[in-house]
């Protein structure tokens, strides 16, 4: 039986997803932060700052207010059943975004790049960003990430080979790029961050893969053994940098590293690095004809 979209119901469900994502951190991220706080030296700035961040998380949830005032780029990964109108889904997401802005779950964050004028409602050219895929299930899955500007500004892309890093077109080269990028980021991306990486692709698809990684669970394993090994090694080595929470120094510079690979052209080898701040706001919604559930 074909899935029929009730646009109003869907719009209201998306509004709730935006509210949830802006005001509540995923449980696995909170657990990783708590572990990091407990691991820092007693009396250190790192421990104190992680404690304040966690306190903020509790307060934001209790008050239903944004965890961070930079409610970021709204990135929607939508998976739909066959035959659903993309335009209707898009329109519902846009309306939910406008409403979420009016209700102060989102800060007006869409600025015309030519005139500098803020549209005031978070909509504009490619804003919010919506990425569509299709599946067999009679449901719409919507994954939303709110990615702030501070961490987007330290996100970056390398082109291998890179002679300054002596990084070749292999996983060792990828490793060197990631160490370099996180060192350059210092505390600016609101450390401790979660690092999404796309290996290969072109400049756009590599970065989409990097951002897709940010939806993975903190403690999961990469199904590709080579990448899993690299993720584990980087998690240990990046935390040796000593940058610490907000760059104040400490043992926790990153909370996780997630790497995906994309097919590339013979001529290109990009390493795309998406730095996500500690306020790693992402949630998932499953919308069927009869019910809505959130992770």
């Amino acid at each position, binding site marked *: 039986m074909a899935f029929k979209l009730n646009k109003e119901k869907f719009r209201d469900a998306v509004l709730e997803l935006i509210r949830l994502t802006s005001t509540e951190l995923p449980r696995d991220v909170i657990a990783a932060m708590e572990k990091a706080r407990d691991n820092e030296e007693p009396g250190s*700035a790192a421990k*104190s*700052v992680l404690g*304040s*961040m966690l*306190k*903020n998380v509790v*307060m*934001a949830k209790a*008050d239903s*207010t*944004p*965890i*961070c*005032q*930079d*409610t970021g780029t709204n990135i929607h990964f939508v998976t739909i059943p066959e035959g659903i109108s993309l335009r209707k889904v898009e329109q519902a997401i846009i309306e939910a975004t406008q409403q979420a802005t009016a209700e*102060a779950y*989102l*800060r*007006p*964050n869409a*600025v015309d790049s030519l005139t500098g*004028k*803020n549209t*005031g409602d978070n909509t504009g050219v490619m804003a919010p960003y919506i990425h569509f895929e299709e599946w067999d299930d009679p449901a719409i899955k919507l994954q939303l990430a709110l990615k*702030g*500007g*501070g961490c987007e*500004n330290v996100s970056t892309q390398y082109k291998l080979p890179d002679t300054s*890093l*002596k990084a070749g077109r292999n996983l060792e080269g990828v490793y*060197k790029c990631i*160490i*370099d990028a996180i*060192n350059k980021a*210092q*505390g*600016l991306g*609101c450390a401790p961050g979660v690092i999404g990486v796309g290996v290969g692709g072109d400049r756009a698809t590599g970065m989409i893969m990097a951002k897709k990684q940010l939806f993975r669970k903190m403690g999961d394993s990469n199904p590709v053994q080579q990448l899993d090994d690299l993720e584990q090694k980087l998690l240990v*080595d990046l935390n*040796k*940098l*000593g*940058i*610490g929470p*907000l*760059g*104040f*120094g400490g043992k926790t510079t990153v909370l996780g590293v997630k790497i995906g690979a994309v097919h590339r052209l013979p001529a290109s080898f990009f390493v795309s690095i998406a730095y996500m*701040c*500690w*306020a790693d706001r992402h949630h998932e919604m499953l919308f069927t004809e009869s019910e809505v559930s959130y992770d």
Partner: protein
Amino acid sequence: MIKLQLPLTEADVRQLKVGDEVALSGIMVTGRDEAHTWLINDKPDNVRKLLEGSVIYHCGPVVSKTDGEWKFVAAGPTTSIREEPIQADVVKEYKLRGVIGKGGMGPKTLAGLKEFGAVYLHAIGGAATLLAKSVKKVTDVIKLEEFGVPEAMWILEVEDFPAVVTMDSHGNSLHTKIKADSDKIAKELIGN
């Protein structure tokens, strides 16, 4: 924890050192890229009294308005380094005693802080609800229509706003030290 009452004197800030945790109370003003450019290009006189001895907070808040009254809903710091080209000039021109933001700033600002007698205070990036709670009242807003909500200059009455001194008025920067150490480790890990 050192309690500071705004406006500050030069003596107040000269005693502060890198690593000190402070709690600010009194009147402070937000300002980001648009505000800094306006302060330098247009040299508006109507904000001089407001800024003298106060601190400028790099923050673009989420606000709500009920019964004609503005409320800060979420108000964490934004990245400060964008103001590096003109921050020192703004501090001197308007006699600011401090800058609040995140990520730290560069050598030009550090030199300016030393020369004039001001500090850089690092707020907790991302802790927007926690910081908004220390804003007791929004007393006014400047350039709201022209700059938009994030870039407008919001005048705030705060109580015990928490921050850490990461650049003091004696030429010390925590950011420079952390970077020097991590550069060394990164070099070893990259192994070239």
